[in-house]
């Protein structure tokens, strides 16, 4: 089947910088990312899976998902931050060695989305840890996630 279809990955776009005046990325081309599900509905997780899958293949821009914040340069936070996950999110952020970046993926992580004001909600990701970049959408498209990751890696 692969032979019939041929290449399934999206072609690599020409290198662009979304903010042309931004300083060069401090993480230097290779970024290890720890994903924290702070209370998501798993919609964003599916899209992150797609972004790092063979089709959108975010790894070719120097990003990798890793299993521990101790190995990571950046956090991807999805979902509204629930009361039970607020402290673990703070500790995960503290465990990432500096310099570090946090990306809030999805509307819930940005501004609590449809769950704003619900009783178990501690706030958006930005209320708990400092957020450096945001990816809007419910859920965001994989292209948007890849674009945010490319801003981190600078590739």
């Amino acid at each position, binding site marked *: 089947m692969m032979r019939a279809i041929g290449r399934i990955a999206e072609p690599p776009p020409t290198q662009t910088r979304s903010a042309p005046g931004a300083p060069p990325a401090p993480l230097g081309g290779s970024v290890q990312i720890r994903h924290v599900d702070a209370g998501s509905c798993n919609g964003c997780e599916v899209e992150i899976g797609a972004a790092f899958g063979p089709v959108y293949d975010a790894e070719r821009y120097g990003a990798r998902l890793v299993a*521990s914040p101790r190995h990571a340069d950046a956090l991807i936070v999805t979902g509204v931050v629930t009361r039970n996950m607020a402290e673990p999110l703070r500790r*995960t952020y503290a465990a990432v060695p500096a310099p570090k970046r946090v990306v809030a993926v999805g509307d819930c992580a940005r501004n609590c989305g449809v769950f704003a004001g619900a009783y178990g909600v501690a706030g958006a990701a930005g209320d708990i840890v400092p957020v450096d970049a945001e990816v809007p959408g419910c859920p965001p498209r994989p292209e948007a996630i890849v674009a945010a990751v490319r801003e981190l890696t600078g590739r």
Partner: protein
Amino acid sequence: MSPATPALAAAHSASRFWPGIGAHWGLTWPALAGAGTLALITALFSLAVPRRWRAVVSGAGTALTGLAGAAAGVAAVTGHRSPTLSVPGVLPLSGVTLAVDPLGGWFIAVTGAVAVAVGSYAIGYQGRAASRPSAAVLPLFVASLLAVPAAASAVTLLACWELMALTSLLLVLAEHKRRPEVAVAARWYAIMTHLGLVCVLAGLMLFAAHARGDSFAALARAAPHLSPAVKSTVFVLVLVGFGSKAGLVPLHAWLPRAHPEAPSHVSALMSAAMVNLGLYGLIRVGSGLLGGGSAWWWLLLIALGAVSAVYGILQAAMSTDVKRLLGCSTTENMGLACVGIGAGGLFATTGHPVLAGLALAAALLHVATHAAFKTLLFLAAGSVLHAAGTRDLDALGGLRRGMPATTLAFGWGALAASALPPGTAFVSEWLLVQALIHGLHGASTATAITLPLAVSAVALTAGLAVATFVKAFGTGFLAKPRSAGAAAAHESPGSMLAGMGLAGAACAILALVPGAVLPAIGRAVAAAEVAAASGAGGVVTLRLDGLAGEVSPLLLTVALLIVMVAAAAWLRALPARSARRKARLWDCGGGPLTARMEYTATSFAEPLQRVFDDVLAPETDLDVTHHDEARYLVASAEYRGRVPDRIERRLYEPVLRAVGAWGDAARRLAPGSVHRYLGYGFYAVAGLLIVLAVTR
């Protein structure tokens, strides 16, 4: 034979009876007599004094007995000659004959040194709970241990051997009122040690029947005229007897039972001093009295030793009871020493006296190093048992905070037991491997097959020993406490720490300057009549005499320390250049880490258990209980896993079952009817009369 034998015989005839006051006594006999007298006085005083002072009297007397014994042993191994002592009236038929040569002196010195540490430790360990019998028997046990290597006739040896077995049995039984398992362990020990005695008795009596008299001098004179069949029978019988005392596989079953159940100072004495005497018996009878013999004896001994070493350390690696682990490790170390003794005998029969001397020296050095670190480890384990109330490694942990000195002692002992520099066992195992490797030149087919296998067994044993002692130290003393007892553990009293300190110092001396004891070992090897040379010399650097090979434990340790200090300094200097921050230990962001998240001793050993699955045959059992109303829902699940001793299961259980069935069958003969018993008597007499009438 060798120059030592005529000298022994001459001394024997010259001092038939007690020598006069002016006779030459040497330094050995006064010290040994002092040890015996001290032991007796201590035993009597321990019976008499009130409970408050009992442990102090018993422990201090035992330490002094050990000190006197060590002095006697040191005098013997430093070349002080002593006359043979013969006391005709003490034992019926043959009397008591005693002589101390450097070989016996080496074992006496090791035993005495162990007893000094154990005696000091016993003061605090027994404390107020010291029972009258166990306090009184302790010095007597030490005295019997000192007497066995001094025996110079078969009957004396057997009498001392039996005294040693009985006193140790009484000491094993010390805590039988508190724990019922003690009685089971003591029963195993009593039966196996006496079966061993029967084998030694049969072997030596067969030997003595072909000699004029039972003194060792007479036996050695008769050995060259014995037929090979008789010699081999004697050797196999004493191998079984002495091998069971040394805990060689498959006669090791008593060892992992008796050692954990005995009080810890007794475990230390048994494991560090008593089992050595099995090796002493093998060297004395096999190499000394029988004078070498055939190559297959020694190949058999090497095979038994190698199997014991690997099997013992595997059982130790699987064990979660810290004292059982140490007991299994005793089997391992005795196995390694047996490889050395076997190689020594093999090289002597194949005409390589230098190699024979080296191999035997390695075995004798290993006896001493094992005694030092096993004393330390058993005393530290006893300290843990004393403080935390459990021997189960899965329930210990976190003792570093409450018992820093004991932790240090066990850590040093664990390092000494794993054959890595600067550990104590490294030196003796290095010598052993050197002897085995150099023996390959010009070897026969059987030797050429055996020696590489023995080297690989020693190497495998060394690797498994590291894993075992990392497990024992890491799960037992580091991390967080897994039970309330371990959390509340407190440091032991000063006398116990002093005992551990003595053993630790002995470990350090043997690890760093083993050259200091090599001249003594050289004399002991020469007395074993295998070879004239010890095969190794030098104080700072150990050199093999006549072979290429040298090692310097002291310089290795210094280099290791320099590297460690440099690495620590570098690591300290490194982050000073960049920002430094304090961070919480990563615990997945959840609550604090608990003791339930730690590696246990069982889980640490699980990968090894998987690797050696075919050898160990672990048993697992899973019971799942379902709800009555919903068969698909699990109410509870119970998992049990254990690693049984496979040799015991295959070899001992059928024998025990057969003996039980035999007993049941015999019971049918005795149903309690007086008429039947009278009938038995009548038929027996009638049958006897008929037999006599027919045969006359």
